[in-house]
C-alpha cells in the first residue's frame, strides 16, 4: 500500500516549558480536503509551521509521500510540493500582483545568472512560461485578480483579494499539498461562500490535496472529507464532520473553555 500523501507522526514541539504540539499524529490522503479545527491556542498554526519547515519539531516525523521533510529548509519543502498561506496575510506588498504570483513559480524555474544577463532563448521562453502560469493561477479566482489588477502593487488590493493573491501565489508553486491557514478569516459571508467553492475546486479541478485550518464551521462542514480536532496540541477527535461535531471531547473543548472564560 502506498503511503498517505502527508504523514505527521508523533510530532512534539515545545516553546520553553509549553508544549504547543504533543505527540500529534495524523495523515492526509491524496485528493482529500482535511480540516483542522480547535480552539485558539490549540497548536493549529504550529502544525503548519512544523510541516513547512519554519519550526523544527522536537520529536516526531513529517513525511511527504513517505519521504521525511524534517530538517529541510522551507524553500526545499515548498519545492518538494507543499505550499501554504499564512494566518496573517504575508504578501510581498510592493511587488505587483503578477510578480507575487511569479515569485511562487520561482522553485519551478531555473534561469541562472548568465542566462538572465544574456537572456538566452531558453530563459526568454521560461520567463514567458512563468508569466503564463502565474496568470493562470491568478485566473483561478476568476475576475478577482484579473486585468489591470495584475499590475497593481499587492498592497493596493482589498483585504479579501490579498487573501486570494496569497492562495494564487501558493498555487503557482505547483504543489501537491496545499496548506490554508484560516483562509476565510476576516471575510464577509459572501466572500466566505465564494472561498468555500474555491477550496472545493482546488481538489476537484486542480487535483490538489488540501489541509485547511478553519474556524467557520459552515466552511468546515461544506468542504471537509475529514476533520481533525485538536486541543492543547493533541488530537482529540478525527472523522467526518458529523462524527467530530458530535464528539463529547470536542464539545467540551469548545464549550468547556467557554465556561472557564465566563467563570
Amino acid at each position: 500500500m502506498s503511503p498517505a500523501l502527508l504523514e505527521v507522526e508523533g510530532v512534539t514541539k515545545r516553546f520553553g516549558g509549553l508544549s504547543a504540539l504533543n505527540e500529534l499524529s495524523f495523515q492526509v490522503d491524496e485528493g482529500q480536503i482535511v480540516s483542522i479545527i480547535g480552539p485558539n491556542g490549540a497548536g493549529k498554526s504550529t502544525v503548519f509551521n512544523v510541516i513547512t519547515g519554519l519550526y523544527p519539531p522536537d520529536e516526531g516525523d513529517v513525511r511527504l509521500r513517505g519521504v521525511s521533510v524534517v530538517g529541510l529548509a522551507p524553500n526545499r519543502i515548498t519545492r518538494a510540493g507543499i505550499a501554504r498561506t499564512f494566518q496573517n496575510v504575508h504578501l510581498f506588498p510592493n511587488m505587483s500582483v503578477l510578480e507575487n504570483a511569479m515569485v511562487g513559480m520561482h522553485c519551478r524555474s531555473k534561469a541562472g545568472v548568465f542566462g538572465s544577463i544574456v537572456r538566452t532563448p531558453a530563459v526568454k521562453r521560461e520567463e514567458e512560461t512563468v508569466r503564463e502560469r502565474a496568470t493562470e493561477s491568478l485566473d483561478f479566482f476568476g475576475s478577482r485578480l484579473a486585468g489591470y489588477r495584475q499590475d497593481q502593487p499587492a498592497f493596493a488590493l482589498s483585504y479579501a483579494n490579498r487573501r486570494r493573491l496569497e492562495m494564487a501565489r501558493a498555487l503557482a508553486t505547483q504543489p501537491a499539498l496545499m496548506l490554508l491557514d484560516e483562509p476565510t478569516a476576516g471575510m464577509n459571508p459572501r466572500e466566505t461562500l465564494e472561498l468555500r467553492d474555491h477550496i472545493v475546486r482546488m481538489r476537484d479541478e486542480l487535483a490538489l490535496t488540501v489541509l485547511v485550518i478553519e474556524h467557520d464551521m459552515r466552511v468546515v462542514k461544506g468542504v471537509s472529507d475529514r476533520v481533525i480536532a485538536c486541543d492543547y496540541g493533541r488530537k482529540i477527535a478525527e472523522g467526518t464532520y458529523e462524527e467530530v461535531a458530535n464528539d463529547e471531547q470536542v464539545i467540551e473543548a469548545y464549550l468547556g473553555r467557554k465556561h472557564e472564560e465566563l467563570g
Partner: protein
Amino acid sequence: MGASARAGAIAGVVTIFLAAVGLIGNFTDLNLIGTQVTFALLMIVISPVLAGYVVTSPRVEGGERVAFTLGQAASAGVVAGALAGAIFGAFVVFVDVFGVDRIRPIFLNISPTLMDYLTQDRPAIVAAAIIVAASVAAGAAGAVYRVLPDGIRKPLGSAVWVTLLFGFLQRIVPIALDQLDIERDWLYSKVTRGLTWPGAILIALVTAGISVLKARQGETLRGAIRGRGNGERRGPLTLTPLSIVLALAGLGAVLIAPHVLGSVIAEVLGTVMVFALLGIGLNIVVGYAGLLDLGYVFFFTLGAYSLALLTGATLNTFVGSTDPAVALDLNFYVAVPVVIVIAAIAGVLIGAPVLRLRGDYLALVTLGLGEMIVVLVTSPWLGPLVGGPQGMLDITNAAIGNFGFRDPKHFYYLAFAFVVLALFVSWRLANSRIGRAWTALREDEQVADAMGVSTTSYKLLAFAMGGAIGSVGGALFAVKIGSLTPASFQVLVSIQVLGIVILGGIGSLPGVIVGSLVLVGLPGLLREFEEYRLLAYGAAVVAVMLLRPQGLIPNVRRSRELHEEDREQDKWAGDVAADEHVAQGPSPLGEGAG
C-alpha cells in the same frame, strides 16, 4: 510667532557655525556674480532665507491645510530673519569686543579676514545692525517666496538657483567655452572669475523662460494623459524618432565630453565612473537584496590589489621597486575576468558567515570585515605580496596596442565602457527571475523562503555579484592612478559609496549615476571646497534623508517601502473606497499589508 523665533534662532546659530568653520571667511573672494554676490555673502543670508521659507509652511488647522497670506508670511519671515540677524550680529560684536586674536587659537577660521569682511571697516555695532537688516530682508524674502503663486514662484526659484549654480561652475563652464573657442568674457569675467552681471541676468531670464515653457508643456501633457483610458496597460518603451535623436545626441555628448571639457574635468569624471561602478555593485547588495553592507571597501581593495598582482606591478620599497612574492604578468583584459571571479568567490566567503544576520548586526559585521582588509594590506605579514604601507607601483595602463589608458582623457573611455557594461548586467539581473527573488527576499525573508526562494543562495549571489562589480571599480582605480597605497582604501570609501546609493535612490540605477556625479563629481570640480567635502557630504545625506528619503531618482518600489507608514493610514480610506465589497469584521484593518 514662537515657531518663527525658534527657526530664526536656529538660523542664527547655524550662521555662526558656518562662520566658525570658515565657510564665510575663506570665501570672501569667491565671486559668484560680479563682485557683490560672493560665496561668503551667500553663506550669511542662506540660513535666514531658509528659516523664512520653513516657518511659512502651510499649517494644518481643523483638518485643513491653511496657507499663509502674503502679509502673515512677510511678518513671520521678518521675525525669523531679525532673530537670526540679531544672534549673528551679537556674535560679530562679541568677537570684536573680545578680540579676534584671543579667539583664533581655538577657532582657527574666525580670522581677521572674516571680521574685515563682516564689518567692512565700520564699527562692529554698525556692522551688526547692517547684518540684522540684511537678515530681515533675507528672512522676508524666503517667506514671501514660499507664498507666491506657483506661476511666479517656480520660474523665480529656478532662475536663482541655476544662476548661482553657473556662478559655482566658474571653473568648468569657461574652460569648456574656451576649448570650443567661444568668446566668453561677456559671461564670465576674467577679473572676478565669476559671472558678470549681464551674463547672470541673461542666465536668470533664460532659466525663468524655460521654466514657464515647461509649466505650460506639462499642462498640455497632463491633459493628453488624462484623455487616455486609465485601464490600458503600459506598453514597452516606444522609440519615437525624437527619442532616438535625443539618445544619440546624449551619447555623442558623453563621448566627446573629455575633449570639450579638458583633462582636469575628464580626470574628475574618471573618478566619478569608478565610484559609479562601486555604486552599481553595492546597489545590488543593498538595493536589490536589502543587505546593508558597510564594508564594501573590501571589494574595491581586493579588485585593485589583485589586478596589480595579476598584471605584474612591482612593490614600492626604499631601495626602489622590486617584484612581489607572487606575481603574474597577464594582460589587463585577461586579468579583469580573473579579478571578477576572485571577487565573486570572496563575496561568497564574506557572505557565508553573515547569512543569519540582519539589519544592524549585518552592518556591524560587514563594517568589521571591511576594516580587516585595510589592516591586511598594511600588515608586514602581507608586505612581501602587496608592499605594506608603501604599496605598489607600475600598474598596467591597460593599453590596447600603444593606446594606454592612464591619461585621464583616455581613461574616461575605458571606465565608461565598464560602467555601461555594469549597468547592463545590473539592469538585466534586476528584471529577471533572480531580481524577483532578491525583491522577495528584501520584502520578507521568511515568506520568500516559504515560497521556494532559497534565501541562502540568493544572499550569497547578491554578495558575489555586488563584489564582482565592485572589484572592477577597484581594478580601474588601480589603472587610473598607476600605483596603490593602503591610504586609498579606508572605511571612508564604503561610506562614500553607500552615500552615493542612498542619495541617488536605493535600488535605482540612474540614481547611482546621479549620486556619484553629485557626491564625487561636484567635490572634484569645486576644489576650493576640498576641506569641506565631508561636511558637505554629511549635510547632503542628512538633507536627502529628511527631505527626500527615497533618493534623488527613486526606484518606485523602494520609495513605496519607505512610505509604508503613510499607507497604513491611507488604507482606512482606501479600503473603504476602493472595493465594492469591504472586508468585514474587526481584524482586517488591524492587520498590516504583509
